[in-house]
């Protein structure tokens, strides 16, 4: 990590610092329990959480194996994310391109988007019952609205001179959209998908409060009711971990698809 070895050093520096910070927090957390600063029921230590993880992996939580809780939550979230991106990106782009579409739809998007999705749970149950679809719908809605707003904004931020440069090269309206506008919005689209997935993942716990019997969100809420703070913490760690992995996946994909981001 010397100065002369600048690129390699700085490439390693970041993960090492992150790792060190994580290790430090874990150590303090562990010490707080081991030294009796905080009672084990208030904050189980990392090793206790690990033990619980091993236990649940073997025997499951409420008759459901731990991996299934993870898989169920991931499946719900991924289905909702994919549907939200597949519908939200085109709609947002149309709103970005067409002032009429924007004028018609923007009030609804902007009204619904900041609404806490928890408030919708009673209605969603009345409409769709307590099945899978209700949970899907809540995550979908949160992600979708965020993607729509982001995609519309992405169109608006495409530089005027880039569009002019394309115009003088003789593109027609469709070519302008397909070959200039769409690729130009990719960096911002990735950013808004990234944010939207963060929001959607947060909605997971709300969605799984709708009479679920499995899933990480449900596990946390259920364990809380029985004061199983170790399971609650395990659930939180897993929710955070998979949220983080999802984000890494999106960033990785972005690096492949939009290698020019930030390098123009």
């Amino acid at each position, binding site marked *: 990590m010397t100065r002369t070895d600048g690129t390699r050093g700085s490439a390693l520096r970041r993960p090492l610092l992150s790792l060190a910070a994580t290790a430090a927090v874990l150590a303090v957390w562990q010490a707080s329990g081991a030294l009796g600063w905080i009672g084990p029921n208030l904050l189980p230590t990392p090793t206790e959480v690990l033990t619980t993880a091993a236990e649940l992996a073997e025997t499951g939580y409420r008759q459901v194996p731990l991996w299934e809780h993870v898989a169920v939550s991931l499946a719900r979230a991924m289905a909702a994310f994919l549907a939200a991106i597949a519908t939200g990106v085109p709609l947002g782009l149309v709103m970005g391109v067409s002032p009429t579409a924007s004028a018609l739809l923007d009030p609804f998007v902007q009204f619904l988007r900041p609404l806490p999705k928890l408030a919708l749970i009673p209605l969603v149950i009345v409409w769709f019952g307590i099945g899978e679809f209700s949970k899907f719908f809540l995550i979908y809605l949160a992600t979708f609205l965020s993607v729509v707003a982001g995609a519309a904004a992405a169109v608006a931020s495409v530089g005027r001179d880039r569009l002019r440069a394309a115009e003088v*090269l003789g593109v027609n309206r469709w070519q302008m959209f397909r070959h200039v506008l769409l690729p130009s919005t990719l960096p911002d689209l990735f950013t808004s998908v990234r944010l939207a997935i963060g929001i959607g993942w947060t909605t997971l716990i709300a969605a799984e409060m709708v009479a679920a019997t499995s899933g990480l969100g449900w596990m946390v809420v259920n364990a809380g009711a029985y004061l199983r703070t170790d399971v609650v913490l395990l659930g939180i760690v897993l929710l955070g971990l998979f949220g983080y992995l999802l984000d890494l996946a999106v960033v990785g994909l972005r690096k492949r698809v939009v290698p020019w981001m930030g*390098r123009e």
Partner: protein
Amino acid sequence: MDGSGVIAPPRAKIRVESVVKTYAADRAAARTTALQDVSLHLGEGELVCLLGPSGCGKSTVLNLIAGFERPEFGAVTVDGRPVERPGPDRAVVFQQPQLFPWLSVLDNVTFGPRMAGVPPARYREDAERYLRLVGLTGFERHAPYELSGGMRQRVALARAWIANPAVLLMDEPFAALDAQTRLTMQELLLDLRRATGTTILFVTHDIDEALFLADRVLVMTARPGRIKAEVAVPRAAVRDFDNLFDAPAMAQRRHDLIALVREEARKAAP
């Protein structure tokens, strides 16, 4: 030497007649008058440089001819037809290269023909030729963000030229380049233009650049812009850039232009 005294010859390729252009200002009630009764013309195959202090309306003139903007009063015509929208008959090179970063150098250069549905066999040779002329052979597969600023601008020049436009509009295209690259680009521009006879309007701040390139130099007043003076360049006296002002006729014109531009620059920024 007054702008209104300029009479367009019958064979004018581009005519700008008594144009007024104002812009709304977001934070002020009054509109900004960018152009106040501007008239100019470019003959077929002429290379005219537009010179003037910052903010005097040079880009506005170019944008009107390109069709990006419409005048409030007056007329802008190319080949006698009013300009209504941008089109591939009027290529533009901007101060920033404005390449498409998701396309390779080659795909950027061939963007126009590809969008027009020209079969690859018909533009491939041209693309190779223009890339060679701008010194970028071997960089066809590179991405724009892997090139230096000067290389990017050379790609932009090849991209503008490949469509064989009748008119080329250039807005301070070489201003961001280092002196050596700029000179290479200027020489390239003169070569290409000699070979193709393209009509070129070239906006610049740089008096030496204007004299090296232009058949005629138009000097604008400070905002609101008008044409203040017209200086014809004796092209026979122009040889290489290093000895540009050896000829007394050229030295005299440089002297005149410096005086004209200084006077307006003082008005623009007192």
